[in-house]
């Protein structure tokens, strides 16, 4: 049962989103996510939920696992997170940068496209 690993991944992924809030880890019981941006939290919660689903078979009957699953449920409701890939229903404001789109994220952060380098190995 890898629930502790899921917990650790969730904590590390929300650490970078926090602004000084207390770690709202879902260790063994419904935690509270302190001061975390909602869209980033929703994405972290979806990853967390996916992780718990993947380890569900081997965690049957494990209290930490069931607490985590319920804790995730509560937080997703609390933060109005959707189950699919988008963040909470947003009333206004630009969409959150996709953490897996390096160029878009870099451009948004620096106001210019990233620099690139080229390397090659060929022939004999």
């Amino acid at each position, binding site marked *: 049962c890898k629930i502790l690993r899921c917990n650790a991944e969730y904590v590390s992924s929300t650490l970078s989103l926090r602004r000084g809030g207390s770690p709202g880890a879902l260790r063994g019981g419904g935690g509270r996510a302190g001061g975390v941006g909602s869209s980033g939290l929703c994405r972290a919660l979806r990853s967390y939920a996916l992780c718990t689903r993947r380890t569900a078979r081997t965690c049957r009957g494990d209290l930490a696992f069931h607490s985590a699953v319920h804790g995730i449920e509560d937080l997703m409701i609390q933060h109005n997170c959707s189950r699919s890939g988008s963040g909470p229903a947003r009333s206004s404001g630009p969409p959150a940068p996709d953490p897996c789109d390096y160029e878009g994220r870099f451009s948004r952060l620096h106001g210019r496209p*990233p620099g690139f380098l*080229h390397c090659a190995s060929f*022939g004999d």
Partner: protein
Amino acid sequence: PHVRSFHHHFHTCRVQGAWPLLDNDFLFVQATSSPVAWGANATTTRKLTIIFKNMQECIDQKVYQAEVDNLPAAFEDGSINGGDRPGGSSLSIQTADPGSHVQIQAAYIGTTIIIRQTAGQLSFSIKVAEEVARAFSAEQDLQLCVGGCPPSQRLSRSERNRRGAITIDTARQLCKEGLPVEDAYFHSCVFDVLISGDPNFTVAAQTALEDARAFLPDLEKLHLFPSDAGVPLASAAFP
């Protein structure tokens, strides 16, 4: 193989065995080379291993391996993307010519990799975000893409001075067809054709130049000339 580094070093190297082309926080690329003929100094890349390290919300760790005559258009686990995570589609693999060409797009780190097989050797070409290429610690100081080949691994002029079955004039004519500018790629082509005696080696240098044209941000740097350190002066080395 001939190695063009991030900083436009252009070396012809021995690097027999497994050597790291890249080793940073996001990527590990290793090339395994062996002599083109028994006892020859010139070697050619027969195997490439690429590890895409896992990234929290984007991808699971993925390993790609290619060998001569086995260029799969899938990662080692059979998948063709970064896995089930929300950003899994930011890593993808496809081919334009099964068995000869594979392109891996790693959008989560602003990286594109092309692997080719020509004339019984593997070629590797990468375009990577500068910030990603620089993300390594002092212990990861051996990366052929960063510093070129160590001096002990570069073929000296005399070592390059080995005659093959084809005359230098024939080699130059064959290379000139696809490489009209007599730059480092042209000299590499002449060297390869001379050493291997195989005219198909012209394709390796031509496609390497095409990839450089596609990947270099500054085309001023596309053609490197023998005045740059370590360029194989094949034509000059064979008077």
